[in-house]
């Protein structure tokens, strides 16, 4: 099957996918280091989930709308969101689209059809359903992807969104990145049933993929994406992709986790995917090394450069609550930073 893909002209796509994985890992590691150095406030590492995300997003198009969650930086990079846009949000500086209002990891890039991430988990899922409804009603092209973690399957919003998408037969891909944990709670204690199987309770197809392998994810999700794109209704995809680090930079996983997937080990999705691609003749070890090196240089220079951008101006605190500030906000701005 893999050879088939290559023959069908997917080689380019595979290389770009792998490149994005490497870029994302490099950026992730850079941010984690910067956070330890006190240069960044917070981060939820994305390592371990690159192959799952990019394996799926290789099927996506510009017009597709993505309600990503806080670990989907790799998918954003793969879909062409410029590194600057992401790093500025990590710093929360004056060039940040969100004007430094969100904790890092809560990314957005409206121009690239990446919606905004709230902290309350899974609460974007009903929005994704509404957006899909609008898309169909307005006869716009494009499907909607809504991603979330395994823990998020317990939430009210998951249930609401799954049922509504099914009832209205909407073009939504529910993409569960099952990294085995919700902070400290293992998935087995979250729910007794495998998440992909829950699709049946709502009347939609569900599948399980090996989210540690970009090629496997890509191949297995193809049919699902086509199903949704052809208007047949929503689907649920569960990708298994073990978390490789702490839940966030505030978390100490040693309390609850012994078996962490090590970077560079043969359970690391970068290693797994690279091996597959080398076997398939899509890349060579040399090309892979070159990609890693280029990423490293690129990220390091970008990251250091953008750190110099100043924080948002005090006025921004009072903007965007409403289209026009109310007298209340004007008054409060006056009290806090003086009237302008």
């Amino acid at each position, binding site marked *: 099957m893999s050879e088939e893909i290559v023959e069908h002209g997917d080689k380019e796509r595979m290389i770009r996918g792998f490149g994005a994985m490497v870029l994302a890992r490099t950026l992730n590691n850079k941010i984690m280091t910067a956070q330890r150095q006190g240069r960044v406030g917070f981060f939820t590492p994305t390592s371990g989930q690159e192959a799952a995300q990019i394996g799926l997003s290789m099927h996506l198009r510009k017009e597709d*709308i993505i309600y990503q969650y806080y670990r989907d930086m790799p998918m954003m990079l793969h879909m062409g969101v410029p590194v600057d846009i992401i790093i500025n949000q990590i710093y929360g500086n004056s060039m*940040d*689209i*969100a*004007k430094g*209002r*969100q904790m890092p990891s*809560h990314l*957005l890039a*409206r121009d690239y059809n990446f*919606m*905004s991430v*709230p*902290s*309350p988990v899974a*609460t*974007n*899922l*009903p*929005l*994704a*359903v*509404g*957006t*899909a*409804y*609008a*898309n169909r*009603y*307005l006869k*716009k092209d494009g499907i909607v992807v809504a991603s979330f973690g395994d823990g998020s399957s317990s939430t*009210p*919003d998951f*249930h*609401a*969104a799954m*049922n*509504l998408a099914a*009832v209205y037969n909407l073009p939504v891909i529910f993409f569960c990145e099952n990294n085995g944990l919700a902070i400290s709670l293992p998935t087995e204690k979250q729910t007794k049933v495998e998440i992909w199987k829950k699709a049946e309770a709502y009347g939609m197809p569900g599948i399980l993929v090996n989210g540690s392998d970009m090629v496997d994810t890509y191949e297995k999700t193809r049919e699902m994406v086509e199903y949704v794109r052809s208007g047949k209704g929503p689907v649920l995809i569960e990708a298994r992709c073990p978390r490789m680090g702490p839940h966030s930079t505030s978390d100490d996983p040693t309390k609850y986790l012994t078996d962490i997937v090590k970077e560079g080990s043969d359970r690391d999705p970068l290693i797994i995917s690279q091996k597959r691609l080398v076997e398939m003749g899509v890349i060579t070890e040399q090309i892979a090394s070159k990609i890693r090196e280029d990423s490293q240089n690129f990220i390091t220079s970008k990251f250091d450069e953008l750190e110099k951008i100043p924080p948002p101006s005090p006025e921004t605190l009072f*903007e*965007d*609550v*409403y*289209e026009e500030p*109310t*007298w*209340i*906000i004007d008054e409060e701005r006056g009290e806090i930073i003086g009237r302008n």
Partner: protein
Amino acid sequence: MVQSLNRTLDMKMGEDSNIILLGEDIGKDGGVFRVTEGLQAKYGEDRVIDTPLVELGIVGMAIGMSMNGLKPIPEIQFQDFIFTAFDQIVNQMAKMRYRSGGTITVPLVLRTPYGGGIRGGLYHSQSGESYFVHTSGLKVVTPSNPYDAKGLLSSSLDSKDPVIFLEPKRLYRSGKMEVPDEDYRIPLGKAKLLHEGDSVSIITYGSMVPAVLKTVTDNSLDADVLDLRTLSPMDRDSIIASARKTGRVVIVHEAPRTLGMGAEISALISESSIEYLYAPILRVTGPDVPFPYRLEDLYLPNSSRILSAVNRVLQFR
């Protein structure tokens, strides 16, 4: 008021095909209060959507629709049930513009009936406006008559910000009045002076407006009666102007006293105009107890309580 709301929705849907209604029993059934009667038959099931029983889904879908080009008007069947969707309102609807740096907006109008007067007991009678007014990012509107209902609903639909449109269900079937067929607006954020006087300012809104007016007329009170119409943002200037003029203020609402709108109005006046006051600022409100069934009439502020508060401030030395 039901008819006025129904006709306004009809008119607006006719003008703008991006307006979508969604909620429980709003289609075939026409809504439990008949506000959406006939609209599904006229505009189709795609535009007047009968939803499953999940308020957070209704609100969440509406937010997602509005982010992508539509103008949804979700209905929550009773305001009492909105708390199951409260996270969507507080953390998504109210904060989307802010957290996206203004790149994503959520223009929608969430309609819901509130307040007592139909013997609905604990869960079909609540007046929860404070929960929304305390939440920045939302506008909160409530009409007190059919004319205002149309003008305020139209303005709410013009708004680029999410509006919580609270319909005093007690007035759904009362207060018949002429409502012009043509399009008009009542601007958000502007109160209306319904009665003018120099001795006392009575500030109220929504379902209490008729009772206040009746008290004033029946007792020939020399009172300003201010109908807020928009609860967030309130009409600061009108409130302060009236308070400064009369120096005596009574606030009337059905919601419980503690942190009801009266608290904010009182605080606003005493931080801006305390030197103009001759008397304490009094509140006539529902008590801080859940809404009852059989003793509903005791719960709701009435003329005698309003009058007694007015007399207290008038006689205060």
